[in-house]
């Protein structure tokens, strides 16, 4: 048999039916639902008199527009201040109760951002197809899953048939070899990749991340990278199975035990690209050359090393690029050619499905420990990605470190990643954010987002402007 990539293997093993036109019916092992993209899908089921195809492949949790404020959370769903948000969360609860779908409700242990709670509970396991009505579903690819976001009509389709009609993508491999420098994190790696290939560089491809940097990376780090595949245009980002994968999965709540575990592991070990597999596109980066990254504009590809500066208009190759740069400079309130470290910071957000896992909390706490947030910074939100991350962080005393530094320790949810709740930027405010999108208005109307790693975000909070975290780490 011809050599196969990891993506080819996952595709092949989930094919229910191929059609003449190249589309296919593909089986979905895990479907994760949240309050924002599901109500119209459930309504569609009801209107057509349909039921979910099966229940033990679906799981739900509210995350996008719940409050992260302690007191509001304690008041339950009725405590959600915004009435449309409240209705949406209630609707999810009602739909899950009505159709019998397992849901981790707002204040239950297990609740969290869809892409944090799925892997952490063992809902998603290697070799699975995973979909969710959220474009950052590629996160689960860190466990060698074929995972991607879907729209609401597809949510309904998966509920009704446990399948998706889709077409095979092309294969792209992104190799990052070498060793990451001191203070350089998975977030910096993925931002550097997006800076290199652009926000449409991966369109139509399933990306496999490979090379020494990923071999040495933890699963949580791989999740951060796969999470942002969509920011490079690719719906799918993946890393092959290795011992790190198996060790991560072992012992989690929904993971098999005993003989089933053994047989699962031997199957999972086959989930790597064959050595002679052919990729349609290949990109190579030198890991040792990557510095901490900061986005300065309003597209994730508008990124520079912290040691660099905002580009010059005269350096742009086309009128279109020049116009995009001009617009970005205007929106972001920045001068061409200014140093990245001159960017002021009004608020800081540490959280989102990109960077709200325990390792992210530890990285931010390591910088915050014994330091104080700059007086010019209005607010620093630290938002754990799930109830379990919150519990673990508190057990390690990280919440106390954040509070002592003048940061706010919040309840789990998406929070200021997309500002559907009260966690928002004001117009013109700059934010060092560990989330994944710096689009205009994403974190609040007129807000200015700078995507960075958790350590860089904590450092910016202390300094009051963007700063190279490596200079602060050497002080230890």
């Amino acid at each position, binding site marked *: 048999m011809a050599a196969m990539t990891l993506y080819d293997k996952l595709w092949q093993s989930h094919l229910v039916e191929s059609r003449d036109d190249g589309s296919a019916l593909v089986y979905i092992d895990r479907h994760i639902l949240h309050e924002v993209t599901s109500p119209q899908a459930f309504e569609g089921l009801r209107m057509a008199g349909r039921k979910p195809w099966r229940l033990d492949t679906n799981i739900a949790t509210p995350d996008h527009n719940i409050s992260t404020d302690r007191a509001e959370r304690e008041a339950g769903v009725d405590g959600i201040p915004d009435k449309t948000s409240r209705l949406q969360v209630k609707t999810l609860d009602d739909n899950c109760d009505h159709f019998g779908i397992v849901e981790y409700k707002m204040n239950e242990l297990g609740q969290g951002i869809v892409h944090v709670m799925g892997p952490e509970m063992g809902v998603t396991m290697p070799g699975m197809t995973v979909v969710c009505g959220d474009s950052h579903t590629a996160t689960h690819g860190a466990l060698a899953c074929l995972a991607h976001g879907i729209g609401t009509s597809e949510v309904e389709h998966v509920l009704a048939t446990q399948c998706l009609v889709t077409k095979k993508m092309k294969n792209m491999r992104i190799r990052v070899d070498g060793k990451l420098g001191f203070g350089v994190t998975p977030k910096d790696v993925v931002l550097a990749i997006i800076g290199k290939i652009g926000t449409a560089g991966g369109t139509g491809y399933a990306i496999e991340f490979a090379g020494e940097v990923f071999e040495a990376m933890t699963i949580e780090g791989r999740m951060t990278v796969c999470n942002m595949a969509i920011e490079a245009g690719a719906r799918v980002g993946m890393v092959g199975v290795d011992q790190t994968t198996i060790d991560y999965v072992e012992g989690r709540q929904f993971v098999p035990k005993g003989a089933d575990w053994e047989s699962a592991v031997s199957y999972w070990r086959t989930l790597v690209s064959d050595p002679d597999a052919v990729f349609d596109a290949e990109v190579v980066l030198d890991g040792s050359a990557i510095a901490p990254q900061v986005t300065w504009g309003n597209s994730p590809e508008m990124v520079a090393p912290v040691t660099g500066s905002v580009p010059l208009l005269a350096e742009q190759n086309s009128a279109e690029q020049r116009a995009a740069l001009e617009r970005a400079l205007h929106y972001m309130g920045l001068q061409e050619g200014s140093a990245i470290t001159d960017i002021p910071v009004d608020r800081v957000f540490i959280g989102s499905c990109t960077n709200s896992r325990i390792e992210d909390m530890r990285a931010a706490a390591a910088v915050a420990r014994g330091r104080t947030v700059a007086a010019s910074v209005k607010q620093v939100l630290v938002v754990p990605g799930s109830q379990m991350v919150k519990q673990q962080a508190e057990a390690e005393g990280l919440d106390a470190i954040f509070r002592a530094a003048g940061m706010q320790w919040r309840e789990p949810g998406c929070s200021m990643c997309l500002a559907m709740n009260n966690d928002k930027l004001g117009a013109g405010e700059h934010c060092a954010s560990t989330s994944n*999108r710096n689009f205009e208005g994403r974190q609040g109307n007129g807000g200015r987002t700078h995507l960075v790693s958790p350590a860089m975000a904590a450092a910016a909070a202390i300094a009051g402007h963007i700063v190279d975290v490596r200079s602060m780490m050497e002080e230890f």
Partner: protein
Amino acid sequence: MKPFTVHTGLAAPIDRANVDTDMIIPKQFLKSIRRSGFGPNLFDELRYLDVGEPDSDNSGRPLNPDFVLNQPRYAGATVLLARKNFGCGSSREHAPWALEDFGFRTVIAPSFADIFYNNCFKNGLLPVVLSEPEVDQLFGAIAASEGLQITVDLAAQSVAAGELLFHFEIDDFRKHCLLEGLDEIGLSLQSSDAIKAYEAKRAAQHPWVFGAIKR
């Protein structure tokens, strides 16, 4: 689903690349639990000078006179002409819902983000990919002649505007579903036996996939 066969309508140009889904429909409007009613908030931040909220009465809001859809010559446009990577960003289906609710039936661009492209087909909105030079010519034609109508013929896979006539590619299955206005779920359920057979095989090989998630 509403079928799409041939459509002729006034074209409006949105002349910027990478128009993302946050621009098409800002997140505060995603709180709705309905599928319709998003039209008044399409391109909300570009279209209005104030900040829109889901409950606002949009009729009294100050319009941004510079925004293309507010210009009288484009009132009633049903064909949107756009630049590359249109619809990038989130998976929100609210983006095609908003375009459709506003009155657009088709979007023409040199390229689309994958998820957005896919979502359009589920909602009777036809995304048409033409080459950059072809799209440039259409932008030129719109600028040159006020009231320009564009005709998109799905069966013939053609776009016509004045003297211009272009061919576009589209995959057969999507074309067929859109022409007929077919319900994709109903179609897939015709393969129920194949799905059940797959599940039986999977349960034998990888039993741990099933059964674990329960309360």
